[in-house]
């Protein structure tokens, strides 16, 4: 029975892609929280993407305490621990648009500054430099037509591929899910399995751990 599930053909194959990027340095920088709040309103969407989604990839190996660049700056350069905690609680997976994510971050900062007026103009130890990413998609030779092939290929791809399919996918799909879960649901009629994968916590695991957890979920289902 289990063997059948692993070998059942999907309606359409899963093509593994990966992504690579170069970072562009923007002209905006903030030396106080006030400047930071003003810049957050104006910077292009790809800057918000860089410091939230993209930075998760750049720090994918850290399994404790790293959430996004904004939270880290509030902690390390502004010494505003409460603000840092609140910013780090923003889970990018809940957002399918940069606008919503930007509004949430801005809301947290503005609300904090309203209660802590003196923090507004205090000079940060280091400025915040807004950057952005130019990302290109890289097709890989790996294709899965069933779960057996999916687990075999998932072991081979780079962590950048996992980031692309599991985290970036939300913005691309505009859905609260990821490419793996969507494939399981749509092409293998395994919606429950897809849901379990979608619940894997990216903030307490490295991307390699995410890979292991996906494999564990799929193999335990079989």
């Amino acid at each position, binding site marked *: 029975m289990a063997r059948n599930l692993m070998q059942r053909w999907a309606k359409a194959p899963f093509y593994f892609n*990966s*992504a*690579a*990027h*170069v*970072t*562009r*340095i923007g*002209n905006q*920088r903030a030396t106080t929280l006030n400047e930071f709040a003003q810049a957050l309103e104006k910077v*292009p*969407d*790809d800057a*918000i*993407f860089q410091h939230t*989604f993209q930075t998760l990839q*750049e*720090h*994918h*190996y*850290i399994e*404790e*305490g*790293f959430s996004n660049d904004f939270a*880290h700056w509030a*902690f*390390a350069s502004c010494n505003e621990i409460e603000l840092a905690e609140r910013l780090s609680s923003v889970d990018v997976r809940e957002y399918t648009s*940069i606008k919503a994510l930007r509004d949430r971050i801005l809301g947290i900062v503005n609300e904090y500054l309203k209660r802590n007026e003196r923090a507004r103009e205090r000079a940060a*130890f*280091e*400025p915040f*430099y807004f*950057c952005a*990413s*130019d*990302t*290109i*998609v*890289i*097709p*890989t*030779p790996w294709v899965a037509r069933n779960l057996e092939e999916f687990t075999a290929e998932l072991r*081979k*791809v*780079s962590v*950048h*591929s996992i980031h692309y399919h599991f985290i*970036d996918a939300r*913005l*691309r799909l505009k859905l609260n899910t990821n490419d793996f879960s969507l494939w399981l649901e749509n092409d293998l009629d395994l919606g429950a399995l897809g849901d379990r994968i979608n619940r894997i916590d990216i903030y307490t695991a*490295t991307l390699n751990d995410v890979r292991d957890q996906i494999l564990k979920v799929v193999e335990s289902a079989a």
Partner: protein
Amino acid sequence: MTEKDKKATPPAPAEPSRAVKASVETDSMIERRNTEPAMPPVRERRKYKVSETPPPPAPPPKLNDYAAIIGQPEIDEIRYIARLLRGKTVKMVNSTAVGGGVAEILNRLIPLMQELEVLTKWEVITGGNDFFEVTKGFHNALHGGDYHPTKEIFDIFLRYNEQNRQRMEFVEDIFVIHDPQPAALIRSKERNRGKWIWRCHIDLSNPHREVWNFLKPFIEQYDATIFSSPAFTRQLSVPQYLFYPSIDPLSEKNKDLDESYIQKVCDDFGIDRSRPVITQISRFDRLKDPVGVIQAYKLAKKYVDCQLVLAGGGASDDPEGAVVLAEVMNEAGDDPDVIILNLPPWSALEINALQRASNIVIQKSLKEGFGLTVTEALWKNKPVIAGAVGGIPTQVVHKLTGVLVHSVEGCAYQIRYLLTHPEFAKQLGRNGHEHSKENFLLTSNVKRWLILYQEMLGLNKPIKVA
């Protein structure tokens, strides 16, 4: 004695130094030291023979040699990105073929590009002593130093750039011009169809205004610029990209070493590995704050047993380095656990061994470029305590990939903390290794170059992710 003389001649230490337990010197260095009074006296020096000349360079590694380090999928991705660029031509231009960080990077980068069939040619600009004096002055001025440029100085710069421009052919698809020295080669842009990139390896955050105003019109003609840190940039009208400097994990400075070799180096230098070892690798320069490191060590040592290794060069051929070395020796006093090593430039293997033998690596700089010694330590899984300056905060994410400090006292506390919390120290080292693997290896830069080339040549438009 003039003010200048005072600077050039190091003062004799008040007493013969008792701190230096081991100092590595070649025979010629020893001879020079004995005949020139500039070097501080060294007592109880252990003789450790190192080669008089640099060893011949090893053949550069092949891309597949890196698979064991970054994984085959990464290598495959690099090859895939390069596919679109096969047969494209690139010319890299800098100002020196040997010595210096840029030449070191190009020596490793270009063979990999050639292997990927991105046909990369490296040319070096030529000039007289007057030109290189000017560019050295520019270099210091762009770092914020005092400088008094004249029309003649700017003319010398332009004249040599023009000579080189006339001498070189510009027929490639992409031109990468490194640093300010050859920046005016951009005048050839109109003659050809290629794209021009200016790679700036220096910190432009606080440049001498007149020098920067002279260079800026050239820089703004490039199609793109690249900096090593967002903190090093200026406001420019052309795109600015972020390429971190990188280390080669297969170079002598960074490759894995046999435990027996590490032990031998420690034995030779009188380092007791049964007790904690903290190390700072840097030339004897006040901006690296070696005296502050000794002060931090002394404060920490009231609570935890440890040895301090200060290893670097620059004291043999740099008068100021000799002065700083004398200050360091005075600060160390007669503590036998302070081991000061003045190493020749070709001591990559020894430095590698010292870093690997250390429990903690310190880089308590007061001003810093990117700080590749930090990268080297992170790569070797070492917990790093570093000054929060220059490019260091990019590498040391506080309490995640190392710890940042702002004072002698802060440094001392972190030494105590890390030596008494080895699990936390180990975690920092592990994260630091991964951080360097993801961001600061030569292979990461190969990938960045390839993506940028594609973008410049319009071969692969970036996707709209946001």
